[in-house]
């Protein structure tokens, strides 16, 4: 939602939680150009450059975990596609990330599956309007399918995907829930390892709630509950637990 500085406090907490499982954790948060000032494919290009920068510090994709929320989740999946296009994955698949965490990912820019929820703060109208600002075609009104992960995910995605698979968090009561469920099914059909944390409808089921609760929740347990689950999943599923 906006800028890396808005996320800074959350990232500090995330870094601290990673420190419980890793000796020397590092986080790189990319600052990319925002729509409507910049349009597709500017954002995916900047995310790709950022990944190469993170790789240069990490040394290998084996210790890189990509995490994205909302539109960031969409860009994270687009990164995999861009890696394949660039030919990097042909180098014994060394450069693909080890793991990918997607929090309420925006899988399809425009979809009939986007149904307004009674509780969620997003509306399908505002989302689709933003999609048209982000990825217009030549006529300026039709969104490109190539910018939607659920569309460009095709056969071969398993070899393309992260080494240890995906961890997807979403709220069952959020606007994007039906679309995310469909994308998860598609990923599984393609043979990807997908671990899902779907929060029941209720107090924790809004769009990107792990981040929202960090700022809104009244006590520390509620504030970090979902993020702790995410960090534990990163540690467990990548088998890098050093404790």
């Amino acid at each position: 939602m906006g800028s890396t500085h808005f996320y800074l406090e959350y990232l500090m907490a995330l870094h601290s939680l990673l420190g419980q499982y890793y000796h020397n954790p590092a986080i790189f948060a990319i600052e990319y150009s925002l729509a409507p000032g910049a349009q597709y494919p500017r954002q995916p290009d900047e995310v790709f450059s950022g990944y190469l920068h993170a790789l240069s510090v990490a040394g290998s994709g084996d210790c890189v975990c990509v995490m994205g929320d909302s539109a960031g989740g969409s860009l994270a999946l687009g990164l995999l596609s861009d890696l394949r296009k660039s030919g990097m994955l042909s180098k014994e698949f060394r450069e693909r990330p080890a793991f990918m965490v997607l929090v309420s990912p925006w899988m399809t820019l425009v979809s009939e599956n986007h149904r307004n929820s009674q509780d969620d703060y997003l509306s399908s109208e505002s989302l689709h309007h933003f999609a048209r600002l982000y990825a217009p075609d030549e006529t300026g009104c039709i969104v490109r399918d190539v910018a939607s992960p659920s569309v460009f995910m095709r056969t071969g995605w398993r070899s393309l995907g992260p080494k240890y698979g995906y961890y997807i968090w979403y709220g069952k009561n959020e606007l994007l829930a039906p679309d995310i469920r469909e994308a998860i099914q598609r990923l599984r059909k393609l043979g990807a390892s997908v671990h899902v944390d779907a929060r029941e409808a209720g107090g924790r089921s809004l769009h990107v709630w792990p981040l929202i609760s960090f700022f809104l929740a009244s006590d520390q347990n509620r504030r970090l509950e979902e993020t702790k689950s995410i960090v534990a999943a990163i540690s467990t599923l990548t088998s890098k637990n050093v404790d």
Partner: protein
Amino acid sequence: MSLMEFLSLVGTLPHMNVLSIGADWLEVIEVPAVVIRRVRIALRLSSVPAECFDRHATVFEALAVRCARYAHFNLPPDILQAFFHKNVTYPFLRFRMLRHLYIWSPVDWQEISDVTVSPCVKGIWIRKDATKDPDIVLYYIHGESAPCRQRAAPSRCLANCRNRGWFCDGLYPLLS
């Protein structure tokens, strides 16, 4: 807004299309309506389903989410992005740190800008020990805000509100 118009909002009159004036004003009373709704839930005067967010949220959470909904529905992109700009969010972070007696950041972080590559890379590194190789690098890609510059037609907006049960459960007590 006349009384007749207001009554039509809460469903006592069936025709919503007569409402083309006063929709902005209505948004002002949405906030106290949320508070009333939350209090009624707490007092068990409201039969809100268990899966409803407001039933589990605190008053502050319910209000904040409602404000976020308003922003996403109504504010133009440039205004909304101003709230997330560094010049706004960083002082806010410093305030939150000072509130907990943190004068200096408890974590080392650094802004970087690499213009030697195309497109240039900008971002923030948070590292525990930069002199050693990290055993994990979390590459974080944040989301964008999803603003709606085109406001919904007032009658449509009001119909949406009514369909979501806000008036029945939130505003109706104001009249009864």
